[in-house]
């Protein structure tokens, strides 16, 4: 016999449910670091201030890139800023992030990346040697991705007004015919995949800062995801619902955003989530969930159930996708929520990141 829910309790639960379904409001009196962490506060800033202020259908779709109809074709545009500290870390640099981050946002919209612009904000006194290194890193990453830097801008601010250098890249791509992706396209029964081991980037940065006296052989996973997306579109194109690179806020935040946008539930099988043992160890010690840790070369893939195996095979065949896995599926109830079936045999709600355990990650 299931326990009875009293009328009063049901009423309270309904109030919570209604509050949850509402768009978050931006009610804070000042900006805190949490607004940049990719979790709940970021969401309230985006949904409560930015999107309503610029109200248009493209922006309201809340995809990683916006699409614009140009001369009969569909062009995708996106932009991203990079403020990572330190600017070089095991496995990557700010220059590589600046290229891959923006290229990946285009790829997630199902667009082939065509061109980038680059803005540099430099701190007075920055050694030219460091600037040259980062410019070379940008050049190398852009050559590897096959996406040229076609325009740029440079500003210098007085010493202390920025930390060495910030970068901003804007990307343009063309929507691939094989793709019809949307955060609102998820259906109950769909399978949820990740393209590899999660949490590497955030952990690598954290250790590189040397604040924790932990030492482990973990490198950032920064890479261009377009080749992998290209293969995926080939193998499972029409059955793909949505792609998202799991940057700030980690896989947990991506899943929560998608569950809300599509009004589905998700159940994730904890034992199936691939995590590097050293990342799991560091997360254990620091009390952080790897599902909340940033990635720079991993994506979440949602696909119709019949194409799940094809999508998995496609991911695994691409360089960097060897550890891809099916980690869960979409359900009908409870709408908008992500549940984790724990390896121990229980269940819990996997919420978005609250607060900011680790600022300036990208």
């Amino acid at each position: 016999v299931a326990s009875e829910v009293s009328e009063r309790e049901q009423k309270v639960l309904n109030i919570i449910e209604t509050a949850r379904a509402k768009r978050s409001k931006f009610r804070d009196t000042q900006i805190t670091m949490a607004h940049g962490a990719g979790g709940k506060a970021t969401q309230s800033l985006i949904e409560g201030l930015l999107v309503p202020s610029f109200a248009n259908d493209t922006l309201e779709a809340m995809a990683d890139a916006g699409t614009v109809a140009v001369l009969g074709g569909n062009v995708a545009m996106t932009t991203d800023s990079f403020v990572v500290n330190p600017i070089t870390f095991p496995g990557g640099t700010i220059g590589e992030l600046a290229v891959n981050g923006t290229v990946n946002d285009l790829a997630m919209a199902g667009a082939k990346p065509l061109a980038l612009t680059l803005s540099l904000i430099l701190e007075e006194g920055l050694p030219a040697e460091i600037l040259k290194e980062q410019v070379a890193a940008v050049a190398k990453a852009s050559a590897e991705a096959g996406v040229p830097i076609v325009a740029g801008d440079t500003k210098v601010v007085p010493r202390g007004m920025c930390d060495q250098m910030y970068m901003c890249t804007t990307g343009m791509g063309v929507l691939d015919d094989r793709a019809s992706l949307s955060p609102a396209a998820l259906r109950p029964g769909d399978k949820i995949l990740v393209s590899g081991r999660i949490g590497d980037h955030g952990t690598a940065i954290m250790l590189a800062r040397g604040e924790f006296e932990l030492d482990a052989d973990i490198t950032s996973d920064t890479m261009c995801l377009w080749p992998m997306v290209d293969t995926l579109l080939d193998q499972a194109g029409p059955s793909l619902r949505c792609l998202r690179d799991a940057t700030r806020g980690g896989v947990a935040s991506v899943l929560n955003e998608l569950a809300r946008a599509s009004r589905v539930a998700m159940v994730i099988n904890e034992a199936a989530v691939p995590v590097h043992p050293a990342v799991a160890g560091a997360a254990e010690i620091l009390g952080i969930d790897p599902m909340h840790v940033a990635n720079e070369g991993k994506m979440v893939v949602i696909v119709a159930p019949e194409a799940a195996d094809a999508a998995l095979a496609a991911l695994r065949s691409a360089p960097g996708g060897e550890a891809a896995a099916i980690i869960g599926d979409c359900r009908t109830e409870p709408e908008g929520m992500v549940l984790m079936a724990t390896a121990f045999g229980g269940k819990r709600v996997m919420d978005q990141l609250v607060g900011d355990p680790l600022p300036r990650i990208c």
Partner: protein
Amino acid sequence: MKYVDEFRDPALGEVLAGEILGLVEPGRHYKFMEVCGGHTHSIYKYGIDDLLPANVELVHGPGCPVCVIPMGRVDDGISLAHQPDVIFTCFGDMLRVPGSDGTLLDAKAEGADIRMVYSPLDALRLAKANPDRPVIFFAIGFETTAPSTALTLKRAKAEGVSNFFCMCNHVTIVPPLRALLDSPDLRLDGFIGPGHVSTVVGVRPFEFIPAEYGKPISVAGFEPLDVLHAIHMILTQLKEGRCEVENQYARVVPYDGNPRALQVMSEVFELRPHFEWRGMGFISQSGLKLSEAYADMDAEIQYGVPGIRVADPKACQCGEVLKGVIKPWECKVFGSGCTPERPIGTCMVSSEGACAAYYNYGRFAREREVV
């Protein structure tokens, strides 16, 4: 992970859950309090609730050191953080706890130099690296973390670091338990005892719970099998009509605790006559302050803090929730005035608090069967 995964074995968990089902008397409702926030965290992280029969209810106790810090103390901390040149340090989860006018995170955004540390030694290191700036460590926690604060202060003194200060909010575990047990409306059948605190204080301080109040207690570890095992032990006591202190966590907790840790605590700290707990009011002899020998490092003395008592919001019923008298949803402000994004009371502050957990999870905890 070796020595960890062994205590997370789902097959063994299933066996224990089966035995627990066999120990439960049909028709009887059991309420056990896990005293420590660490246990609450494990219960949610692993979904241990799901493995229990629905008539075994776990009540989250007052043992989350972050959530029990009252508003007035947060305000005092913020006022210290705003002092000129001060570098204010604290553990990360303290940043989000609301005072009467915002959190430490808000103070940071307003320009206070507030840094998150993982250990008091990190704060001492900051003090040595910035000799011309005062570094204040906002110390929180039960007997678990108090020894590391004490050792850090001893080291700072020995090394002659003169710019390191401590605002002490350390608390002790026994007085709030006694306060809970003394309340006439308490409805609890047993306790899951705090494992980490017991590594320091031992098991002996909990003997009064069965002796004076007739409630069984099992001091438990923090892995999911530990928690299930402790519940198993308490149910076995109830079934066999026993009532005693048992030590589930004997692999770590000695009966008499850690005498050296207790020694260093007694050198550095002394009991306050009383200390305020969020949701529970003033509890006598429940808080620690720096002893006279360390007064020169006591931020409250050296800087002075407003020390204004900020009453818990009237509508907040955290005290009753903590005592197991009402369920979270029965509180007047639950889900309306008090939400995880804008918490009023202690139980909503931490994601592990009883109310935050219910807010996020309540609807789905109802699939279990009642025996």
